[in-house]
């Protein structure tokens, strides 16, 4: 399945076997607790399903430290 992945403001088309955003994050080694996700420009839970041509945006949460 091909989807568009947006990370750090850059979008690229990728192939993934992930059925949900959570699985996609796992594939890429991203902890769900440290990000928010948008699917096709709308905030969604990471547990949402993904389908062909979806645009998934990963928003890293910045901590002041």
């Amino acid at each position, binding site marked *: 399945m091909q989807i568009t992945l947006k990370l750090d403001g850059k979008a690229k088309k990728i192939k993934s076997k992930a059925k949900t955003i959570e699985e996609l994050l796992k594939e890429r080694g991203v*902890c*769900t*607790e*440290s*990000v*928010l996700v948008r699917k096709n420009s*709308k*905030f*969604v*839970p*990471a*547990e*949402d399903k993904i389908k062909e041509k979806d645009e998934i945006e990963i*928003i890293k*949460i*910045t*901590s*002041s*430290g």
Partner: protein
Amino acid sequence: MKCYSCGNSAVIYRKYEGRAWCKNHFSKQLESKVKVTIRKNNLIEKGDKICVALSGGKDSCLVLYLMDKFFGKRPDIEVLALSIDEGIKGYRDESIKKARELCKKIGIPLHLHSFEGEFGKTMDNIVKKDARACTYCGVFRRFVINKKARELGATKLATGHNLDDEIQSVFINNLKGDINRLMRLGPRPIVTKKKFVTRIKPLRDVPERETALYDMINGIDYHDSRCPNAEDSIRFDVRKFINVMEEKYPGTKHIAIKHFDTILPALRKHFSDTGKVKECSNCGEPTSRNLCKVCELLDNIKY
């Protein structure tokens, strides 16, 4: 996923409670959670002048927004904002811009002070003399915030510390064996001597990713960038570890903070004699030592 309450599209699924929420119900839930924290711990009382320490980041912007939303129309409570410009070009000037915009939007007065005005030095000057940027910045910032809040007549100093910040601090102080700092944490403010403005943390029960989500879906425009001087300290490793634990075992953060709150009264009782507050022999500000940390650090960089 659908909202547990109304069936609309969910924006978040809280694994720790097993429920998904839409934009409106998530926002209401978060607001209720903060109100409960305030009420349960008597954080705000009649006649309070609440000074919000506003950096322009996601957490402090949310605290100011909610303090105004909850108390802005109360005739017996005053809300104001205080920002400190540490003098970090390209970073703090940008975040203060966001702080200004939010204050203007909701009609809250912003009081701005700087390291340069207070100490005659900016952080950009200091890092050229000593690489321990976070040590200087943290100590100086807490000093100026407390001093200026007190001069403004504030009775409460509200900070943006969220659940993640608090549990990280509990872990760090345990790892370092720092009992005094550990005892200063907790849901209720410790009322100390008159020169310290009582600090409150209204977001203490809200996970970090929820403060960011609330801001984004409610149009609170905050500054989203990491300080260029930030060191990869123990906090960053602890943050990563706790997030992995929360992902694997949902509810970890809430359970850990609840456990800490349970044992805190016993800790404070047992170690009650430590951390007495005196006045600095040089500047007169409150400290647990003869010469406060600010005066000591200023002495290091006087040349």
